């Protein structure tokens, strides 16, 4: 449902069905709602069968990359020669995204059940749930849920541990996350080796996002075919997805819809549209790392992996940031660039220097000291920041800059030409 608002009839509530119900947080409350039946079902199957079911369902990773979940699981060695690990990525830090937080706050057992099923499928002995350090409330709720489920004996031999982060966006990158669990600086690793070959502690590892794992129990109880049938447009995008909508909408919050749902309906109907007298100017559909859409693109965009790409952006994490006509796009793009400059791990030159200089040039433009050549300079920088580094943080900084200049060039030019009141940046 559109937590914290009442569910909208156009939503398809699967993951968010119990958001707002405190009783669903408890072990007993979860079992009463049919919880942990899917785990029992999975345990009675061969791991390979569980992987096949998830493959058939079409479930794709909900953390941002959209990689097919069953296929990812199948990369793990079939014959177990070393310990296998599962890492759960609960380091939700992508600006615009706040869905995993809600899953952990309201349905912690959905995540634990999905985690245990995934661990069975990939034959993991240990699962680490990496929760970002700032999520104090989700952490406390997960701790309680884990203790209760553990004492009820539902996990068998599987060990599930919570690992608290300490403030670093980059640890949401899967190899940085593994380094952070190992007690290291959160620097991403060069791939290959891929995690399924050598992941955390050098052992075969799978990393899955919270929302991905929370979707697994209903796939087992209701079947792959049923999940696959939840699709409004592209057959490659199946199931429901939580969209976190924020910014200039009347009712921000989490909304769960079937993939292929029109972005226009999400913004104007489910979220109540813009504030009175305001019109939509721009929208970032998949968390701050994806290209910005203008109004026409937003209003014609279908929310699935293929539909958003068709409009020139990406579905990403499903964090929808809406800007109305009051937004200063130059300032907001500077804020996003500053975010990436702050969060760069500084390993790669293109990222360390690129994110910092992008921010400085944008600040200079805002201060009324920009030069006409600055826009080309920003685009040139962006090109050198794309596809050239160990991870995609650098690319993520370039995405809003390139799309922002392309679609809102006149706003930048007004600052440069001195036709806009300069903004002194703190």
């Amino acid at each position, binding site marked *: 449902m559109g937590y914290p608002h009442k569910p909208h009839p156009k939503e398809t509530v699967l993951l968010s069905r119990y958001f707002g119900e405190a009783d669903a947080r408890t072990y007993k409350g979860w079992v009463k709602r049919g919880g942990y039946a899917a785990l029992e079902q999975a345990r009675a199957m061969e791991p390979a069968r569980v992987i096949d079911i998830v493959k058939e369902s079409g479930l794709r990773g909900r953390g941002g990359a959209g990689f097919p979940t069953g296929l990812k699981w199948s990369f793990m060695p079939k014959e177990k020669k070393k310990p296998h690990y599962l890492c759960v990525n609960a380091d939700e830090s992508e600006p615009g995204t706040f869905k995993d937080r809600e899953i952990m706050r309201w349905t912690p057992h959905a995540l634990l059940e999905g985690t245990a099923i995934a661990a069975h499928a990939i034959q993991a002995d240990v699962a680490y749930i990496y929760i970002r350090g700032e999520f104090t409330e989700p952490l406390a709720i997960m701790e309680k849920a884990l203790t209760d489920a553990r004492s009820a004996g539902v996990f068998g031999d599987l060990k599930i541990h919570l690992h608290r982060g*300490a403030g670093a966006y980059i640890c949401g990158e899967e190899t940085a996350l593994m380094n952070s669990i190992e007690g290291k600086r959160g620097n991403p690793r060069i791939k290959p080796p891929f995690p399924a070959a050598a992941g955390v502690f050098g052992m075969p590892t799978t990393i899955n996002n919270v929302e991905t794992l929370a979707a697994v129990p209903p796939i087992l109880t209701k079947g792959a075919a049923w999940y696959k049938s939840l699709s409004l447009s592209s057959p490659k995008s199946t199931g429901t997805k939580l969209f976190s909508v924020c910014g200039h909408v009347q009712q921000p919050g989490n909304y769960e819809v079937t993939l292929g749902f029109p972005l226009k309906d999400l913004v104007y109907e489910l979220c109540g549209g813009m504030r009175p007298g305001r019109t939509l100017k721009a929208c970032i559909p998949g968390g701050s790392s994806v290209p910005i859409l203008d109004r026409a693109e937003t209003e014609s965009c279908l929310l699935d992996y293929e539909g958003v790409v068709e409009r020139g952006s990406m579905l990403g994490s499903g964090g929808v940031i809406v800007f109305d006509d009051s937004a200063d796009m130059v300032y907001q793009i500077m804020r996003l660039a500053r975010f990436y400059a702050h969060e760069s791990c500084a390993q790669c030159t293109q990222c360390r220097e690129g994110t910092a200089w992008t921010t400085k040039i944008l600040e200079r433009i805002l201060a009324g000291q920009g030069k006409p050549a600055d826009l080309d300079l920003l685009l040139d920088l962006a090109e050198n920041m794309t596809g050239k580094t160990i991870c995609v943080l650098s690319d993520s900084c370039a995405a809003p800059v390139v799309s922002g200049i392309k679609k809102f060039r006149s706003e930048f030019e007004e600052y440069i030409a001195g036709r806009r009141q300069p903004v002194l940046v703190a």
Partner: protein
Amino acid sequence: MSAGAHSSPSVGPEEYQPVFTEQMLEQLQEILARYPTKQAALLPALWLVQRARGWISDRHMAEVAEVLGLTPAYVKGVVTFYTMYHQHPVGRHFVQVCTTSPCNICGAEAVVQALLTATGAKELGATSPDGKWTVIEVECLGACGFATPVLVDDDFIESVTPEKVPEIVRKYK
């Protein structure tokens, strides 16, 4: 944001009180059991220190290094990577305000100003003269639909507006 306005630590090495006494070592043992290496207990061990002492000094880092079989330089390298570990003493209440784009367009910067005024901290990263408050701006707190989220110590407060700030500050006095 820089935290430059802190006074230098007054505790000298001769007065150092170890953090990992018997009870804390027991807690550490429980943590160590979760991982195949001792090094992996570093982030949780640093959290234990910060909870006990409010911040993590070079001397604390050396102690953590000793109990985990690491070098002080290595521990410092890790501490400085993560923004939530305090390398300086902070106010009794530590306030983190999100000012990234989604909160920014919803008025986060005004919330920061209201907090700086109401707490008397005045400057970002500085501590109020009464030692009670330190306020910092942080990047995305992951609650963008509840702009502006503010973290006061471990309390995550949603939908803060400048108008709500005085009441929040009063609650922690």
